[in-house]
């Protein structure tokens, strides 16, 4: 029991550290990618290739003035960013980061919690995420923040539906809600994306909307709403909001890699005939490569597409994504039935 707790603690803190580190460096990568897309170089002053830029940004945010509006609800004002950060970090628990490690004849899965309703857990947590933004926007007592929060909540709720419906097709194929089962079924090159491209596309688009990323970044919408829900936030509270966005991006890339791109599986993995530990290590890096690529897609889309108008966003969500997802479920059901 003691080793079990120790191993889970180590694993959980490793995943926490990795998510924070990845989120930190995705801010730099985002700016670099943005620069390269615009024929610039991006930040390159802090350290070689600007590698210390995230540190500089973090230090700056810590030392900024901690400003709170007089009319703000003090408790909720602090709860907002804390909740957003907490929820962003919670989802990583159910993702299988690699196959089992074997130490002293005992198997240690690289997954903090193999819940049999893994996907459901992730969706449940993600849907709480909207509260962080809503509470923050409401507590600021600012019209822009409130408008941003309203937009965020209606957008996230609308796209969650299509997102979950897209996943149902995958779950129907796998017959399990456990993320571990879903990954194991995609052994080798047998990835879900080949069987469910429509579901993947719907999921991807909804993930953009869920993470409040461009082209669906209406909640922050600098041009109309100043800063959206975080208009009144400064210092590390603002940092938490921005940071949580990048963690969310990382986690949703991880979920997509797990659900559609075979997680830690890679082609010809059976022919390698390596020890389980080596396989787990390679699998972990393979998963990370996939996550990096998907994260790049997030940035790629952001720096390509302009922002949607709000009615276009809603029409896309309700009139295109949800019917498509339902159609996808029906077709998947028919194909499964005929087989």
């Amino acid at each position, binding site marked *: 029991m003691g080793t079990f707790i120790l191993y889970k603690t180590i694993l959980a803190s490793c995943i926490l550290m990795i998510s924070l580190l990845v989120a930190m460096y995705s801010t730099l990568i985002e700016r670099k990618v943005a*620069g*390269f*897309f*615009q*024929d*610039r*170089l991006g930040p*390159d002053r802090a350290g070689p290739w600007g590698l210390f830029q995230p540190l500089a940004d973090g230090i700056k945010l810590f030392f900024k003035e901690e400003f709170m509006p007089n009319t703000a609800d003090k408790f909720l004002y602090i709860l907002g960013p804390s909740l957003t950060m907490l929820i962003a970090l919670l989802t990583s628990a159910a993702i299988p980061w690699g196959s089992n490690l074997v130490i002293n004849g005992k198997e240690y899965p690289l997954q903090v919690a193999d819940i049999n309703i893994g996907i459901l857990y992730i969706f449940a947590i993600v849907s709480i995420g909207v509260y962080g933004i809503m509470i923050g926007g409401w507590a600021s007592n600012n019209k822009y923040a409130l408008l941003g929060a309203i937009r965020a909540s209606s957008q996230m709720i609308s796209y969650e539906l299509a997102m979950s419906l897209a996943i149902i097709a995958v779950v129907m194929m796998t017959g399990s809600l456990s993320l571990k089962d879903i990954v194991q079924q995609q052994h080798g090159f047998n990835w879900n994306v080949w069987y469910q491209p429509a579901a993947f596309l719907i999921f991807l688009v909804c993930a953009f909307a869920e993470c409040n990323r461009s082209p669906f970044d209406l909640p922050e919408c600098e041009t109309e709403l100043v800063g959206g829900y975080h208009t009144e936030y400064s210092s590390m509270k603002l940092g938490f909001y921005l940071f949580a966005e990048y963690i969310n991006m990382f986690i949703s890339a991880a979920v997509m890699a797990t659900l559609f791109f075979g997680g830690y599986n890679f082609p010809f993995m059976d022919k390698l005939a390596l020890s389980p530990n080596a396989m787990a290590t390679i699998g972990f890096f393979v998963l990370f490569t996939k996550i990096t690529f998907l994260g790049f897609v997030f940035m*790629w*889309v952001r*720096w*390509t*597409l302009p922002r949607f108008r709000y009615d276009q966003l809603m029409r896309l969500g309700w009139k*295109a994504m949800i019917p498509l997802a339902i159609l996808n479920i029906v077709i998947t059901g028919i194909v499964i039935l005929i087989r």
Partner: protein
Amino acid sequence: MSFWEKIYLPAVLNGMRITFSHLFRKKATIRYPETKREFAEIYRGQHVLKRDEEGRERCTACGLCAVACPAEAIIMVADERKPGEENLYREEKYASVYEINMLRCIFCGLCEEACPKEAIFLTKKIVASDYERDGFIYGKDKLLEPLDPEKRIDISKRETKEVLEFKKDKSKKHNQ
């Protein structure tokens, strides 16, 4: 909108293809303190008051540059050359005070076009920034070319063929 336009995807993918091609383009950024942008040979920067081959000031304080200046940035005070100053000033009359207000100057180069004595030229040098407005009024101490032959300022690139020909044109009053 047609069907393909309505589903956005072809347009989105096309856009993503275009942005992706930009990843490999040559970057326009110049890492400033390490590398500097190359200036044109005929760049119009800070002025210089030229001396002739013997080191005498060429300016005779005729005031044509001040007249030509559209920004009215040039002020000068003329003085008569005293006996014994022949090694300092080329003409009998010289400018004892010659000031250009660099905040007013628009670096159009009309002053050098107007100058009949080849005395004023614009150079590649950039006017330095300053905290005070007074610091931008450049007198002869800053404008005059150094005497040291090593430190002479080359302005041959600004003396284009057209300019030289124009200055030889005796039908123009100020060239006589």
